[in-house]
């Protein structure tokens, strides 16, 4: 146990001293890794904020059913009965056209316009909250409702939500593709750096093997090197993500205030931050392992 600890602390010390000796080089490599990782991490943060927004609005999604302007009172009663029977309807609210006009009067300051109207332009309406909120069941409910007698128009409020969701889906696909492509680039960058390092230490590696160093003894510092590159690169990526999102949030806040809402992109929290660091550490470790296994022991028995 003690010798195991000694071996690892020895390797780590060696790597850190090499880091110090090539500080500028190390920083540039870590920065390159950070920039590579920052792009998917920014995309992820933006997309998760947007889909959070979409989910929020989706739960309030409603179907509005507007009746034709001139029909008998019992049409509304018939529709009410049909809605009560429909299993897809969670709840509904009937707003008579007189009530709707009153609501409009209280909501708008400009009463002159309304009072100048000869007759109430508003129809009777049902506001329905569907039981299932997914796009397919909303669509079928909409079709069912349209078949009922005396209905002028069925409007799904969530239509734009649907579009936003599709956009987010496209964005997520793009993110997955970009992340995997950049992941490969990262493996190549770290692997190449490690290979260069192996080349510069060729003499030491050769002598060490001749005088009895085990493969793991030789491999260990390079694995630490890869893991550290990954970890520091991950921290750089987080820093870049924070900076970029903070800059955009300032403008987003101003913009969303114009729409009387309060929307901003969430900064990565501790969990997602550690996930980024851990992932990049693992990528660093794995690419170092491949680089070492490929170029270190090819000419040794």
């Amino acid at each position: 146990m003690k010798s195991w600890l000694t071996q690892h602390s020895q390797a780590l010390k060696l790597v850190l001293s090499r880091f110090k000796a090539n500080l500028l080089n190390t920083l540039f490599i870590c920065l390159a890794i950070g920039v590579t990782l920052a792009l998917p991490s920014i995309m992820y943060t933006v997309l998760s904020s947007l889909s959070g927004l979409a989910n929020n609005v989706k739960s309030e999604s409603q179907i509005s059913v507007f009746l034709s302007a001139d029909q008998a009172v019992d049409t509304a009663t018939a529709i009410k009965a049909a809605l009560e029977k429909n299993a897809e309807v969670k709840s509904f609210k009937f707003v008579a056209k007189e009530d709707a006009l009153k609501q409009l009067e209280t909501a708008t300051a400009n009463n002159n316009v309304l009072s100048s109207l000869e007759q109430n332009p508003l129809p009777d309406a049902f506001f329905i909250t569907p039981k299932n909120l997914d796009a397919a069941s909303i669509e079928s409910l909409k079709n069912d409702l349209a078949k009922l007698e005396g209905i002028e128009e069925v409007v799904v409020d969530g239509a734009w939500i649907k579009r936003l969701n599709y956009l987010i889906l496209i964005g997520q696909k793009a993110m997955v593709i970009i992340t995997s492509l950049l992941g490969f680039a990262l493996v190549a960058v770290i692997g190449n750096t490690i290979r260069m390092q192996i080349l510069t230490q060729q003499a030491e590696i050769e002598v060490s093997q001749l005088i009895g160093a085990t493969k793991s003894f030789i491999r260990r510092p390079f694995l630490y090197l890869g893991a550290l590159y990954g970890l520091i690169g991950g921290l750089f990526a987080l820093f870049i993500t924070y900076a970029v999102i903070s800059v955009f949030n300032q403008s987003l806040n101003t913009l969303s205030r114009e729409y009387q809402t309060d929307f901003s992109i969430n900064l990565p929290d501790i969990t997602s931050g550690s996930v980024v660091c851990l992932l990049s550490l693992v990528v660093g470790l794995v690419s170092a392992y491949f680089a070492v296994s490929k170029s270190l022991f090819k000419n040794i028995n």
Partner: protein
Amino acid sequence: MITFDNVTKRYPGSHEALTNVSFTINQGELVYVTGHSGAGKSTLLKLMAAIERPTTGTVLINNQNVSKLKSGTLPYVRRKFGLVFQDHKLLYDRNCYHNVALPLSINGITGQDAGKRIRAALDKVRLLDKEKAMPITLSGGEQQRLAIARAVVSRPSILIADEPTGNLDKVYAADILQLFNAFQQVGVTVIIATHDALGNSQNEHVSSKILHLNQGRLVKAEVAV
């Protein structure tokens, strides 16, 4: 201690470097491996130090058959040896102290304990005052002595040197051989490969074994007194 039994070594795509070589080296012996360049001296030393494995035949090191060992255990066998290479193989990116520290760090010895041993080894080869110097600033003889310090720092029971006096003038060569004799006198088995047919610089007081190679064959194994 080291036993070769009908050992043949053939490198892929070339002739046999060693053919049917058999001999035994006992604890504490001083052994010279002689022969022209290309006679197979270096191959013989590599087989002894478990750096190469024989094509046929058996090599026993402390009663362990090298051919049968897993490649994972070979490094531990190699640690029993102190090796002085023909081309020194010093590391020019670090000072003398850290060159000598390498075998100890491979053995997991660090800190004060290592420091004491490193200084003792440097002292033995009279380089204690140069511990901070870079190897490139040392003379040929000093570099050779540094290589010896690195070979002995982990206190091996067998010391193997390939042409340790190869490119040194007579005075330096005698100096180096004196060092090896000193190690042999404290019980270390010393094996030296040399191309000059038993150099005149050899110490006459010491009894030694000679393995003379010619084109990969052992033509003479004798004890000189």
